[in-house]
């Protein structure tokens, strides 16, 4: 009977319930659908028990007890709605409202405010308090969060968020008694990449979205689920719209992906949607070299005819296509189908990668485990990654692991700091020798395996104590993972780094994780939008041009999808030159950048992420589909529709889809069949030049065309800090 000692039975409102020993009463109530009012308690934060709103009656307790800080014990009897409990809750409510301005009609939180709701349930209809209320000057938290601190009820959720989640304590409670204020004390813009979450945490209207301020009432908004398009986490979001316009983006809870958080990038990138340089009309370059607006039919004809012309004179191999790594899987699939139909394997989306020599050994780089599993690791090695800025919410999982005792170490260039403690650090701007040394340390410890082409490199390595320590912590960790990030992935010697990192992981029995660029690089790979693989990893008869070769050789005919050459490609200006050299360029563009506008022969307005249905495959391999939240701006069309029509116009077979779901089921079907042959890693057989030249990762608010155009993001301290750390780039 007492095999399950930690299981207890309690009576809540005279109903018998099972609970875990030590669980807080409020958690048990929540799990069983019993509602207890609360302000300071939050399931993702520590218990502070300072608002007293959750008072309940507990048998044999002389006073009402806060449910959020009362652990259950066997046989406990509690009542949440007894006359005593209700009286206590009412008194607390009255107390909290003493200094609250009650300005709901002019408060953005109105309609989605915990205080408003609780006041309705537990407040009186008139106030007995006639004295003056306290007024607090608003604080300046920067461009993302607006404050109205007179509304603050001192729940300290935002304070605890800074300490516990963001890892940068910036907000605190200064002064005391009725002089206490929540704030930063000195004027300071919040610097966390997750700062916007305090807007959701604040139970009142004290912290609000600054860009959204006074622009809509919450009940006017229509909410459509979506997936954030900036990193490989695939955070679930709600896109909230009014009259066909995106008004704001908020998180959608999904414990397996983003928990309840989203990064500031995910929250505020929508502000770019109405930029003046949105492309809203199809355009064709006329004989005078001028771009002129035209109708879809003529633009599509011009695009398809131009590409077919190149294919018929120079062969399909003279065509190339580059797509944003945040394109949808459907777009990737149709793009490669179109290109392969026209006779070209030159399709790529790995825009920031520079070394493709190892691509045939790198089968579907991905996380290799689930996001949730990251928290369970005992040892994590981060190789070449500013993970906190590259993948904010994945980094949050690593932080959780680190805080619960995992040994997290890094092999990184100088100057990258994280909000979690590191157990070991190898600081270097040459990743290869550092990784070789770690591998050598493992070999010396008897962990060797088949290192093939890496053998010589590893044997020559010089093991220092820092390398030894990393090797030991990985081998010692019962659950370990080795995670390769953007800095490693972009390295000019990516192939060797990839192989070494894989070798380290396999020797130590760790999970080998590779984090790629954009929101859907894995989707791109699976869909076959790469030159060396067809859909679902099928082989191709001849390997096409990768991004680097396309930049080198400037294919005669180029199809660009969602690309701003100068900022999106590792090659930057050289990529722009290649495009200018190309003879015929078709751009599916959301925004009009100068290279596209200056060169493209046909411009097809491409719908943004809120305007199109599609699917992203996140780092752990989860396929997440979403529908369009609003109609595309102007004449813009979803990418899959544009590509479908281009395929049909080019007389290619199999382009008669009715919906993006049709496209999805086709590509998904192909991938599911292939999934038996799981993704693998193999040591390089042949090793070229092993010197590496490490470049910094892309600054957090420069990763794609949306975040670059979001003014409020650009005004944050983080946007400027990012620039400072790019100093090392070529």
């Amino acid at each position: 009977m007492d095999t399950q000692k930690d299981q207890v039975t309690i009576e809540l409102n005279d109903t018998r319930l099972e609970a875990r020993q030590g669980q807080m009463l409020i958690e048990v109530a929540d799990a069983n659908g019993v509602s207890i009012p609360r302000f300071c308690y939050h399931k993702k934060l520590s218990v502070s028990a300072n608002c007293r709103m959750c008072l309940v009656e507990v048998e044999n307790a002389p006073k009402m007890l806060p449910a959020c800080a009362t652990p259950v014990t066997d046989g406990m009897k509690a009542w949440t709605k007894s006359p005593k409990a209700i009286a206590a809750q009412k008194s607390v409510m009255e107390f909290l409202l003493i200094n609250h301005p009650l300005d709901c009609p002019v408060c953005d939180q109105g309609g989605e405010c915990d205080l408003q709701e609780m006041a309705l349930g537990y407040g009186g209809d008139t106030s007995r308090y006639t004295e003056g209320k306290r007024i607090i000057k608003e604080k300046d938290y920067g461009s993302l969060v607006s404050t109205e601190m007179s509304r603050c009820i001192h729940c300290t959720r935002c304070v605890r968020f800074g300490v516990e989640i963001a890892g940068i304590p910036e907000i605190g409670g200064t002064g005391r008694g009725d002089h206490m204020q929540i704030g930063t004390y000195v004027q300071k813009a919040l610097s966390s990449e997750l700062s916007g979450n305090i807007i959701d945490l604040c139970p009142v209207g004290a912290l609000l979205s600054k860009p959204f301020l006074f622009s809509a009432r919450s009940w006017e908004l229509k909410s459509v689920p979506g997936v954030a398009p900036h990193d490989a986490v695939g955070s679930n979001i709600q896109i909230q719209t009014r009259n066909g316009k995106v008004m704001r983006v908020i998180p959608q809870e999904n414990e397996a992906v983003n928990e309840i958080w989203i990064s500031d990038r995910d929250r505020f990138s929508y502000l770019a949607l109405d930029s003046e340089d949105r492309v809203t009309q199809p355009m064709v370059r006329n004989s005078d070299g001028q771009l002129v607006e035209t109708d879809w039919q003529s633009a599509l004809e011009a695009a398809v005819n131009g590409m077919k012309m190149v294919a018929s004179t120079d062969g399909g191999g003279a065509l190339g296509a580059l797509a944003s790594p945040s394109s949808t899987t459907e777009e990737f699939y149709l793009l490669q189908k179109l290109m392969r139909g026209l006779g070209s394997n030159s399709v790529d989306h790995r825009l920031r990668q520079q070394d493709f020599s190892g691509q045939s050994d790198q089968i579907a780089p991905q996380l290799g485990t689930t996001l949730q599993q990251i928290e369970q690791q005992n040892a994590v090695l981060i190789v070449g990654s500013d993970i906190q800025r590259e993948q904010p919410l994945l980094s949050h999982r690593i932080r959780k692991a680190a805080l619960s005792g995992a040994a997290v170490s890094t092999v990184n260039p100088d100057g990258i700091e994280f909000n979690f403690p590191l157990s070991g650090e190898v600081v270097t701007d040459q990743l290869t020798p550092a990784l070789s040394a770690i591998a050598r340390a493992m070999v010396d410890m008897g962990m060797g395996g088949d290192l093939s082409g890496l053998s010589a490199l590893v044997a020559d390595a010089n093991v220092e104590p820092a390398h030894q320590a990393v090797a030991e912590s990985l081998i010692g960790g019962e659950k370990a993972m080795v995670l390769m990030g953007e800095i490693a992935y972009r390295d000019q010697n990516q192939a060797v780094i990839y192989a070494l990192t894989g070798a380290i992981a396999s020797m130590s029995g760790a999970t080998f994780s590779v984090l790629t660029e954009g929101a859907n690089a894995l989707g791109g790979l699976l869909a076959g939008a790469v030159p060396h693989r067809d859909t679902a990893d099928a082989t191709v008869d001849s390997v096409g041009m990768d991004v680097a070769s396309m930049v080198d050789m400037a294919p005669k005919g180029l199809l660009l999808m969602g690309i701003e050459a100068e900022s999106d490609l590792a090659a930057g200006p050289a990529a722009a030159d290649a495009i200018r050299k190309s003879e015929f360029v078709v751009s599916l563009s959301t925004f009009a950048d100068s290279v596209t506008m200056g060169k493209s022969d046909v411009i097809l307005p491409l719908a943004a992420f809120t305007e199109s249905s599609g699917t992203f495959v996140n780092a752990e391999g989860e396929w997440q589909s979403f529908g369009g939240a609003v109609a595309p701006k102007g004449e813009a069309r979803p990418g899959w529709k544009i590509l479908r029509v281009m395929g049909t116009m080019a007389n290619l077979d199999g382009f008669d889809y009715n919906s993006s779901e049709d496209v999805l089921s086709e590509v998904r079907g192909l991938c599911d069949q292939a999934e038996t042959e799981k993704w693998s890693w193999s040591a390089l057989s042949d090793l070229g030049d092993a010197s590496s030249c490490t470049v910094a990762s892309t600054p957090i608010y420069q990763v794609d065309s949306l975040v670059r155009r979001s003014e409020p993001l650009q005004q944050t301290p983080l946007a400027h800090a990012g620039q400072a750390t790019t100093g090392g780039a070529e």
Partner: protein
Amino acid sequence: MISEAARADIDRWVEKYPEEQKQSAVMAALRIVQDENGGSITTEMMDEVAAYLDMPPINVYEVATFYSMYEHKPVGKHKLCVCTNISCMLRNSKGVVDHLQEKLDIGFGEVTEDGMFSLKEVECLGACVNAPVMQVGEHYHEQLNPEKIDRLLDELRQES
């Protein structure tokens, strides 16, 4: 800048706590820095204390604003802390306050022109038996009346 001497003093406090709990010395550190700076601390000084004790600045601000013995504006050479809590109030602390304000021509939170005195209202000093009470530096002055106050002011003036 925290002086060498002050640092040495702070280090003595740091030593009293476990190594990873350096920040336990924050109150002592703030007091030391405040004493050195003539009775008040600035934001820069709090930042320095934070850096020295390896803690987030906001946590230093919280401590320094919570306790009333830390001053955030310059004070006089002698800080006269008058208790106005209940016992002292019943024993005419108002008279003490009025007398001081008239004599020194300053209100609470202000400094005399010569920088000699400042006036501060404080809560119970724990010496109610001898109310009304005022604290100056490390000394309590009890059962105050106008004569006593005048004598004290003269003494303090002479001292400097």
